[in-house]
């Protein structure tokens, strides 16, 4: 049985869900296909906007200022493209870019309020949350559970990293050492950093504990009290003012748990930024899905877009494949938010890269065709460096309305818009810009798709 919609969004991460929510809130009949979860779900759950300019080594203190610089220096960056729409006066280009990003980020923060992943922070300044390695990173918004309060400003702050016996994803002693060395070098508080281990045993065993079972366990009544009881002695012993936990404080009750633990212990409690499989990432994913379905959008899980029908320069429909069935969906416009290599929006072999749904030709970070590149040659010899891996900047080249373009710069279809990591021209890992670009491009792609749909109907 075929389906019809105004807008079909392909991909259910940050970019796709924001695009879908915007469209559904506009009253459009919106179907979102999701083949699987992806990078958003295993992000640390913080929203990076811009942490470093490409190749730079000093962090950006304000996303707003970062955007000003970026839009001047990198006009083809996914943040910047929107400013170069011919409808925008040349004097307003930079302002438009900064405003649109701010609008998208503000929208996101407002919409996630009251969900399982409420955010804090603002567009004016980056925060520097601590990671499970004991390092810090610049980011724009964090989940409220990650709020470390005045640990880095209060002169007498004493921070304890709390590990859990048998939970290998976080080692409090190395995190404490690394963080303390960082603070000493920076000559700022906290000047005392310790580490302790507590026991949380959802199934009665102190080994092979996963983040999800700990988080689920802490969602249950009574568990926070037990935890507080164990912590008391440690806190007194060191005079701890702040407690850093791995990001496992709960799925549905994480923020409540933080507040409760703070009340019970008289300290500031916060979650560190962690690695996948990530609970804050899961909370963010759930929260985004909630706002999408609340807006009236329809999710089609377990469906992969496998083919499309295009007449002239209009995509008419796509075929979605579930494990044992197929379905055709007609729509007026489509948003492609399939991610990069993890999401599967871009795939490659030793002969080159391709976009996977519409077989479009990706480009490299400097906008040469990536269809015939040898991936290993688009890499740096250094594994982890500020240069990053150039292959991670490959993706689709889009016009100022976020439509993928051909070699000649003309859009491939009038009604196909791209958003998120499938777009070329930025390396989110080194820029610290992943979810910010996803949110902003999802936001803009949806606005453009809505405009197009209103024109044709």
């Amino acid at each position, binding site marked *: 049985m075929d389906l019809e919609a105004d807008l079909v969004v392909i991909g259910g991460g940050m970019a796709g869900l924001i695009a879908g929510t915007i469209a559904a809130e506009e009253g459009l009949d919106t179907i979102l296909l999701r083949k699987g979860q992806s*990078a958003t779900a*295993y*992000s*640390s759950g913080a929203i*990076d906007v811009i942490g*470093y300019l490409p190749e730079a*080594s000093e962090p950006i203190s304000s996303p707003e200022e970062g955007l000003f610089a970026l839009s001047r220096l990198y006009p083809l960056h996914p943040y910047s493209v929107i400013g170069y729409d011919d409808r925008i006066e040349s004097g307003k280009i930079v302002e438009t870019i900064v405003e649109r990003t701010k609008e998208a980020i503000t929208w996101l923060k407002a919409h996630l309020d009251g969900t399982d992943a409420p955010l804090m922070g603002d567009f004016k300044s980056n925060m520097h949350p601590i*990671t499970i*390695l*004991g*390092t*810090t990173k*610049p980011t724009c918004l964090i989940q409220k559970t990650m709020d470390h309060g005045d640990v880095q400003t209060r002169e007498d702050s004493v921070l304890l990293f709390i590990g859990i*016996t*048998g*939970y*290998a994803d976080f*080692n409090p*002693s*190395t995190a404490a*050492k*690394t963080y*303390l*060395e*960082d603070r000493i070098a920076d000559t700022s508080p906290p000047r005392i950093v310790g580490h302790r281990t507590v026991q949380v045993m959802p199934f009665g*065993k*102190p*080994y*092979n*504990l996963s983040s999800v079972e700990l988080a689920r366990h802490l969602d249950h009544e009574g568990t926070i009290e037990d935890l507080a009881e164990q912590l008391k002695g440690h806190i007194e012993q060191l005079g701890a003012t702040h407690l850093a936990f791995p990001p496992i404080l709960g799925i549905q009750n994480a923020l409540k748990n933080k507040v409760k633990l703070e009340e019970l212990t008289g300290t500031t409690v916060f979650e560190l*930024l*962690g*690695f*996948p499989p990530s609970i804050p990432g899961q909370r963010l994913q759930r929260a985004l899905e909630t706002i999408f379905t609340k807006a009236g959008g329809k999710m089609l899980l377990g469906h992969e877009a496998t083919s499309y029908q295009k007449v002239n320069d209009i995509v008419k429909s796509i075929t979605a494949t579930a494990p044992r069935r197929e379905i055709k969906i007609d729509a007026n416009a489509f948003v492609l938010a399939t991610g990069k*290599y*993890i999401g*599967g929006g*871009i*795939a*490659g*072999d*030793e002969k080159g890269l391709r976009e996977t749904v519409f077989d479009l030709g990706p480009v490299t970070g400097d906008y040469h065709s990536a269809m015939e590149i*040898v*991936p*290993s040659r688009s*890499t740096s*010899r*250094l*594994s*982890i460096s*500020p240069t*990053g*891996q150039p*292959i*991670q900047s490959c993706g689709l080249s889009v016009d100022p309305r976020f439509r993928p373009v051909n070699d000649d710069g003309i859009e491939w279809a009038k009604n196909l818009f791209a958003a998120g990591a499938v777009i070329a021209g930025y390396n*989110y*890992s*080194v820029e*610290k810009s*992943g979810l910010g670009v996803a949110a902003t491009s999802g936001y803009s792609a949806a606005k453009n798709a809505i405009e197009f749909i209103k024109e044709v109907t």
Partner: protein
Amino acid sequence: MTKSKFDVVVIGGGSTGTAVARDCAMRGLQTLLLERDDIASATVGTCAGMISSGLKYRDEPDMMKICSKEVVYWNHIARHIIAKNPILAPLLDLSDAASDSSYMESYSEHVEERDVPAMMFLTPDASIEIEPMLHPEIIASVYYEEYFIDPFRLCLLQALDARNHGAEIRTYCEVIDFEINDKQEIEGVIFYNRVSGATERVETKLVVNAAGPWAHKVAKSAKDYLPIRLNKGAHVIFDRRIVNIGITVKAMDGRWIYLFPHENTTLLGTTALDTWENPDTLVASFDEIEYLLQSMETVLPSIREARIIRTMTGVRPLVPDWKVPERNVTRGYRIIDHSENDGKKGLISFLGGKLVTCRHMAEAVTDLVCEKLGKDIACSTHEKPLPGNEDDVDIIALSKEYDISLHALERMRARRGTEMVKVLELTKEHPEWKTTICTCEPIIEAEIRLSIREEFPQTLNDLRRRLRLGTGPCQGTFCTYKAASILSDELGLAGDDFLVDILDFRAERWKGIRQSMRGEQLAQEELAQGMYACVGNLDQSDVDYDVKPWEEGF
């Protein structure tokens, strides 16, 4: 380190060096092994681990005889780290069969003692039933059996056994000079300790140079000369056992190449290119990867669809035969007594050789060493088992006793045999150490702790050699930071050193991943970048990171 006087200093911690140290120590000699990096960190660490019947070298019947005998010894002293490797050589046309009829006979000469059958022919249908990925138009295949040994554990066990017999094993100690007296006799060895940064010296009566691809450089430090032929070989590694049994085929240039299930991966190798580069800088080239894939594609057309996780590259230290292709260079070894050619007295060097013959080589050189020292003690390295080989292990019973998963224990058994109980005992006091750290292999925390305490690793890469840490599909994406924490705890490292350990291991894994990047390895790398650069912010870290040899010059 207590002693400063030795009977013999062995240079090189590869298969040969560790075998020599073991033999010397077992014969009661005061023995010191010096290795500039880690045990099994060079040639032997990049081989497929086949202890072969010498089939490829049938023009050297003596070699084949030695190989066969050595396989028997290995199965006696190290069966816990050995596995059988059934192999098919599919034939696409009759000329394949005709051109090599002699090898079937040569192979079959010593089969009984090795406890394998003679070579046999299989029909196309039977072949395809055994391996459905085979080209549908093969006309027949030849079946034979070989054995594998875990090359890392072998070297480590030889080193540990040498230590048990009184030898000193010093890794990260690079020989930089020799003390030579007026009579051109070597009296002492000077080496640089790369961990402490100190220069040290020891006195010795004899030096055995088993430095493999650096043997000529060691000779040069002794102001002596050793001609050598270095030859690069590369492997492509797949994420799991993608074939049911081993496949061998003739490559486009007529060399034999192979695709072997190995532990829980599959190895495709090898190439052979004469090289004059610094072995530390070598990586597999695009051409080498294509040479292997295209050659294997002739019999396994879908090989490219499988997941390639990395490449590995090593250097063969061959006997310096000129005017012959690599495959015709003898795989026999030579022992060069430098004193015989007016060279330095007390310096003995190795050239050539194979993994399977390392014990034999050690026996021969130790005989010579004993003769020079005027001692008459018989070799027993072929009789006394290596640690862990003593008995069978009941995995199911151990799993019940210690509440650890069967598979984690089975993998541990394949590394440690009966010695695994030492690891398990640690979990009695520390049940939390039952936690899996490397999810691909799998490795529990207790084994990592035991290895750090007893097997002298300095880096995560050293742990990889001892435990297979980070060798699975994700190539250390998920175990690097966890294992680095444990290493940091055990060695009492500073926070910066912890981050450096992470960066070092990422660099070492990336060395092999990068060359064959394609398919899901693009996603794997996006994930690794997302973790270590995006979240961890380590791309912006200001720790003292030493650029690696293969990272220089871009």
